[in-house]
């Protein structure tokens, strides 16, 4: 181990001069936090919209590592992020209960939609009932793409199947395809296969390779997708930049942050709906 450290130290000594010129693009590196978040917030362009505003105001640079919710929480558990910003409430509460997070705050929501081919072989178009739609897909054995990556969307999908009294993930059937990848990859796969897929509306709206896919089911309350933000507990990981991380959280749930989130639109459509509780004192 000691030997390996020495080798690595030698490597680093060789590397560091190469970065003399790299400090510039990584401006405000000294005042920055790492946020583990989800692909939906990053891919939809939300962070691209709100982070420059936040940085301009506070001078804090936010580095976003976009992962599935499960992986993002794991990253934070290992102490590799200062803040987690994800969408799977039960997992988030467990994260706080285990002592890895300080406190969870609601920030905003959007909703899931069931997307499928325009030909709609299972005949679910127009249904406002998500579980009924899933039952019809199951009966028709119509192709369905599952994220299968323990993400927030995957968690929501599994909850919906359970509420429909079905369990295609373990019953198998080749119409149910678990791909173990992010939202974008799942949409690309569904587009190529003309399959049904559960997607968050934000990623769907910013997704460009739709092919024949369209939104078939939306509006069910059970498709509600709540995002929460948590500061990683400095008691567990002392290097966590608690002050800067808390500043980011405070800003997100402040009236100004909430307005900034509400302002983000694609083609005139609002993607995320702020719903933080009134600011604590």
């Amino acid at each position, binding site marked *: 181990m000691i030997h390996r450290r020495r080798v690595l130290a030698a490597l680093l000594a060789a590397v560091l001069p190469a970065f003399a010129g790299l400090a510039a693009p990584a401006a405000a590196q000294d005042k920055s936090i790492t946020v583990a978040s989800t692909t939906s917030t990053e891919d939809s362009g939300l962070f691209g919209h709100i982070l420059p505003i936040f940085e301009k105001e506070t001078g804090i640079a936010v*580095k976003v590592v976009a992962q599935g919710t499960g992986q993002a929480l794991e990253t934070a558990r290992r102490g590799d992020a200062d803040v987690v910003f994800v969408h799977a409430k039960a997992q988030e509460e467990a994260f706080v209960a285990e002592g890895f997070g300080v406190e969870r705050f609601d920030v905003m929501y959007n909703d899931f939609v069931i997307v499928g081919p325009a030909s709609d072989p299972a005949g679910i178009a127009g249904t406002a009932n998500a579980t009924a739609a899933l039952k019809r897909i199951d009966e028709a054995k119509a192709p369905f793409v599952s994220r299968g990556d323990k993400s927030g969307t995957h968690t929501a999908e599994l909850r919906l199947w359970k509420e429909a009294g079905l369990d295609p993930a373990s019953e198998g059937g080749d119409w149910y395809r678990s791909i173990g990848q992010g939202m*974008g990859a799942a949409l*690309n796969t569904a587009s190529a296969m003309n399959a049904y897929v559960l997607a968050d509306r934000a990623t769907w709206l910013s997704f460009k390779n739709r092919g024949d896919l369209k939104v078939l089911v939306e509006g069910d309350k059970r498709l509600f997708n709540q995002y929460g933000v948590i500061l990683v507990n400095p008691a567990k990981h002392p290097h966590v930049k608690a002050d800067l991380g808390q500043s980011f959280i405070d800003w997100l749930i402040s009236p100004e942050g909430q307005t900034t989130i509400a302002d983000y639109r694609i083609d005139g459509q609002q993607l995320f709906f702020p719903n933080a509780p009134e600011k604590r004192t």
Partner: protein
Amino acid sequence: MAETATAWQLIIGGDPTLFAILRLSLIVSLSAVAIAALVGMPLGALLALTSFRGRGAVVVVLNGLMGLPPVVVGLGVYLLLSRSGPLGDLGLLYTPSAMIIAQAVLVLPIIAALARQTIEDLWRDYRDEFVAMGVGPAGRVAALVWDGRYSLLTALLAGFGRAAAEVGTVMIVGGNIDGFTRTMTTAIALETSKGDLPLALGLGILLVAVILVVNAAAWTLRSVGETGRTA
């Protein structure tokens, strides 16, 4: 990047974000190759010029490691550099340094294995003459590396090609952070997942073009070196 811009517009318009990404990709991959060469060339030479028990096994393992899956290397370096890992105190995860370390590990076996083969072949040629001339160990290595430099350059290019084209390690240990650790390959993966396939393809073509430019530069260097020398 603007939603409606195509890759060509970005290239022709000199999009600063695009060029920052391209620059980072080159810095990371070239640094990784430089470090891997610093370690791998002497390692390959040592292996070529020494004989010991189990040398054959070491050569086989080294050759096999040329096929190291980037994701596995990325995961290993991630666990090492994570705050919960043995080197967590350095705080290197999700930085360009972490990407350089991971790519250097990935490329090291390629450079060491190809250097060993090159130097061993040359040594087979030179051995008798060197013994007759009384060339010592240091002189041998220096002469073999110098005379094999063009073949060794190919080994470096193979390493660079591998580093510049891979996405597995940089995604895991770099985190694909916008403006900080986003490289050409992770940007391509991101645009693909956003369903912007034309932009992803455009970026891919640009990456291939850059790799070709680096290879062309190396080729020119070689041609000039071979025809232009007088001493």
